[in-house]
């Protein structure tokens, strides 16, 4: 742990948000102000000052030219009176005090010129907005207009943020999933955003990467400067900038305790995943990046229960071709063997990857062309993926799983396409394994209600609890206004899950859980009790979940689950499960509470 004390005189700033991925990061801030029409902030070297000023001068000149052009046009159309405002804009643009302040900030702070300009302008605008005369206050807009024009030019003229090279905590207004994919995970130690919720995709990603994240941190982008010391506490939902000596010492102590627990859990991770009374639970990992595969075995995974292919497929502008896909799938399968790798086919749409390359926006993407619906509508994309997956089957145990299935016919059509691909491949001379399994994600209520029919055509079920909860209870998990109504222990949801497990048993197929709920150790007794045979969790959660499984008694869980079916409220169900969990693993439960209880 590398922790610096903040220089005397800098005030400690504490921002409260919602911790969505536990853990601690001690680092420097990096502020990404995109989406706020403000530039990125990064530091420059002393020898770059002159070239920054040069770019600034160039941008000023170009902006002046643009403004003069506008003034002339307006003057021709509407006369001098109207065009005078653009003359005023030119004066604002070239104001010497403003320029001096920007340049001295550049030299003193050694941060990029665009940010200096932005910060100086913000200062002026703030002052103007505070003016009592409301007309004058409103005219801050003139300044904003000029500033935005100059910033556009500045950024276009080469104020390009260099790749960040220092370890940092990213502070941003919001992150798109593609932002999170492209970030350098070796140096990004955590992130704090103004938007987002516990179940938004970026939060899920943070948990899967095992880095702390805090969302709902109001005003952080405006008030935090780049390169400040900070502590990000994803467990308590705090971002502390310029931490005081006392704060640092407190956190150091806390961090050491966490470390001890983490090491203890990890030391047990190679033990078998079974309950005290001997029920075996397959413990697998949710994975999105091929490089996570290395950590599976050290963290005690039996295999991959969910390989999310959309990150890989949609990461670059073009979808990788069949050979490229086949190569990646093969490497993953070989890396995980003798364990099983379950690939989920492209799950685009909803809050997932942008899909911009593929789709025009839908009015309600969550009820739109997501998952298998997209794949079936675009067989030219789907078949490439299916063929590539089949080509990986000779190298180990492979599961192919379809997301967002709501109808029996969708599963049938997907399977028919898979068969078609298989015979094509065989006739082309490729080898295809015989023992791959075809699975269905159960994440839509109609699929759970139809589980008995689906089970006759599928080899396994994997319950995607995030979507199942959202579709069953009609709660948008990203909407902060209702996210407190998002309750995995909802009795309706539990009944659908139970139906799924029973339909599976009746037809001789197994049921797993790959949603967030699988790593909620407060609810783990419920999942074990309802007869779930496989759990798939984020790589960093594996040791925790395994340790919990090993302390539970299957028979006790079964009885408890049976009693819960008579309860009508999520809170009471969670409480029952909590009591059992508390009895079995009080220390680990304490460790995670505070971030994980939604109910």
């Amino acid at each position, binding site marked *: 742990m590398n922790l610096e004390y903040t220089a005397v005189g800098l005030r400690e700033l504490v921002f409260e948000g919602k911790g969505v991925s536990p853990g601690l990061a001690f680092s420097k801030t990096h502020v990404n102000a995109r989406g706020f029409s403000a530039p990125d902030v990064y530091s420059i070297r002393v020898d770059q000052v002159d070239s920054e000023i040069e770019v600034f001068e160039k941008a000023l000149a170009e902006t002046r030219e643009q403004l003069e052009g506008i003034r002339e046009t307006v003057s021709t159309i509407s006369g001098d009176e109207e065009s005078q*405002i653009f003359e005023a804009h030119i004066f604002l643009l070239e104001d010497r005090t403003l320029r001096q302040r920007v340049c001295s900030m550049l030299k003193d702070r050694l941060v990029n010129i665009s940010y200096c300009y932005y910060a100086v302008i913000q200062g002026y605008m703030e002052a103007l907005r505070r003016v009592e005369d409301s007309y004058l206050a409103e005219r801050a807009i003139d*300044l904003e207009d000029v500033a935005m024009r100059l910033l556009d030019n500045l950024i276009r003229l080469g104020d390009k943020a260099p790749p960040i090279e220092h370890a940092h905590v990213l502070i941003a207004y919001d992150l798109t999933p593609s932002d999170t994919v492209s970030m350098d995970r070796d140096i990004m130690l955590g992130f704090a955003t103004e938007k987002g919720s516990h179940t938004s995709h970026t939060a899920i990603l943070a948990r899967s990467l095992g880095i702390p994240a805090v969302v709902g941190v109001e005003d952080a982008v405006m008030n935090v400067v780049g390169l400040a010391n900070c502590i990000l506490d994803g467990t308590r939902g705090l971002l502390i900038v310029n931490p005081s000596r006392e704060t640092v010492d407190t956190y150091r102590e806390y961090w050491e305790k966490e470390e001890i627990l983490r090491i203890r859990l990890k030391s047990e991770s190679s033990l078998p995943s079974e309950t005290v009374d001997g029920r075996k639970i397959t413990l697998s990992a949710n994975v999105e990046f091929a490089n996570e595969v290395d950590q599976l075995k050290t963290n005690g995974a039996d295999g991959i229960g969910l390989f999310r292919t959309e990150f890989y497929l949609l990461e670059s502008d073009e979808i990788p071709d069949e050979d490229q896909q086949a190569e990646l799938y093969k490497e993953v399968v070989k890396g995980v063997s003798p364990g099983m790798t379950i690939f989920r086919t492209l799950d685009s749409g909803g809050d997932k990857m942008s899909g911009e390359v593929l789709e025009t926006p839908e009015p309600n993407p969550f009820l739109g062309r997501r998952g298998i619906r997209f794949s079936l509508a675009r067989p030219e994309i789907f078949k490439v993926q299916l063929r590539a997956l089949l080509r990986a089957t000779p190298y180990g145990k492979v599961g192919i799983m379809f997301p967002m299935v709501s109808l029996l016919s969708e599963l049938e059509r997907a399977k028919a396409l898979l068969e078609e691909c298989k015979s094509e491949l065989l006739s082309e001379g490729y080898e295809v394994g015989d023992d791959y399994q075809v699975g269905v994600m159960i994440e839509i209520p109609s699929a759970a209600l139809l589980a008995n029919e689906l089970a006759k055509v599928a080899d396994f079920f994997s319950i995607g609890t995030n979507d199942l909860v959202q579709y069953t209870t009609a709660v948008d998990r990203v909407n902060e206004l209702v996210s407190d109504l998002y309750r995995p222990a909802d009795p309706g949801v539990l009944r659908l899950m139970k139906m799924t497990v029973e339909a599976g048993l009746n037809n001789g197929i197994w049921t797993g859980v790959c949603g967030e709920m699988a790593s909620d150790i407060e609810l783990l007794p419920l999942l074990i009790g309802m007869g779930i045979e496989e759990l798939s969790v984020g790589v960093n959660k594996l040791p925790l979940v395994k340790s919990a499984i090993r302390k539970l008694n299957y028979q006790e869980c079964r009885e408890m689950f049976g009693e819960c079916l008579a309860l009508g409220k999520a809170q009471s169900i969670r409480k029952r499960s909590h009591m059992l969990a508390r009895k079995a693993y009080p220390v680990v439960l304490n460790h995670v509470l505070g971030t994980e209880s939604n109910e």
Partner: protein
Amino acid sequence: MLSQEVIVKNKLGIHARPAAQFVKTASQFSCDIRVEKDEEEVDGKSIMGLMMLAAGYESKLVITTEGDDEEEALKIMTDLVANNFDDN
């Protein structure tokens, strides 16, 4: 160094356009031109400074000039304010 008090008479106060007029006129002189309002003094050749004064209708300004052409500058600048910056 010369100074003179003047009252802002245009209804909308010194917003961007009159401020620009002021700066444009002031820049024709070589002398220093400063504008003071409520003990806050700014550079009369900087539009930002003038706007920051937030000089609304009927606010009292003191214009100070210092340099070779200070006399002419003071007259022209006070006239400009008194004549509503050729604004409304």
